[in-house]
C-alpha cells in the first residue's frame, strides 16, 4: 500500500484529502499520475493536463521519474505560495 495526500486547490477539486492505494510493484511518479488520470473527469484534468502539479515522495519534492516503493507517502499539490 502507498498513502496518497492531496493539498490546497487540488484537495478541493478532487474532493479528497487522500487515500490508500495497493502498490504491488515499484512504479514512478509519472506512472502513478497516468493511473490516477485514468479515473477520468477532474482526475484526468489534474493528473494528465496540469503541468503545474507538484509531487513529493516521503515528504521531499521529486521529479516525475522518482520511483515509488510500497509503503511510501506520496503527496500531490499546486505550486507552493507561502511566505
Amino acid at each position, binding site marked *: 500500500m502507498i498513502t496518497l*495526500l492531496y*493539498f*490546497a*486547490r487540488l484537495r478541493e477539486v478532487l474532493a479528497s484529502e487522500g487515500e490508500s492505494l495497493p502498490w504491488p510493484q515499484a512504479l514512478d511518479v509519472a506512472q502513478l499520475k497516468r493511473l490516477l488520470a485514468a479515473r477520468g473527469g477532474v482526475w484526468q484534468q489534474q493528473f494528465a493536463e496540469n503541468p*503545474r502539479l507538484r509531487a*513529493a515522495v516521503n*515528504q*521531499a*519534492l521529486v521529479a516525475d521519474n522518482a520511483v515509488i516503493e510500497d509503503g511510501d507517502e506520496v*503527496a500531490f*499539490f*499546486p*505550486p*507552493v*505560495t*507561502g*511566505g
Partner: protein
Amino acid sequence: MTVRVQAEDFDLGAEVRQLRLQSAGAGAVVSFVGQVRDLNLGENVASLTLEHYPGMTEKALQAIVTQAQARWPILNALVIHRIGTLQPLDQIVLVAVASAHRGDAFAACEFIMDYLKTEAPFWKKESSSKGEQWLEALGTDHQARERW
C-alpha cells in the same frame, strides 16, 4: 537553528532578542517579517487562510536553513511560519539570521526567504469581496530563487 510552524502570532522583539543574545560573537541580526497585505490583486482582502503539509513543511524549512548554513558563516537562524486564518496586517512569517558580519546575515536571510517561497509546502487561500480563491505562485518568486 530553530524552525516553527504555528497558528499563534509571534513576538519579533522577543524572538530576535533571544537569537542575538544566544549567538556568541554576533554583530548583526537581519530579520524579515511578511505580513498580510491590506490590498492584494486590487481587491480588498478580508482574510487569508494558510494550509500546509504537516511533517514535510518542517523538513523543508530545516533543509532550507541547512543550505544557508552551508553557504554563509551564520551563527544562528530562526524561521517561524504561521498557518490557519489570518487578517490583513497580521504577521505571516519571520526569518531571522545572526552572524558576525552584516553581509552574511543579509544574504542568508534573503536566501532563506527565496527558497521558502518556492520549496516550503504552504498554500494561501484568500477571502475577499469577490469570494474565495487560491493564490497562484508568482513567476518572480522562481526568478528570485534562481539567482542563488
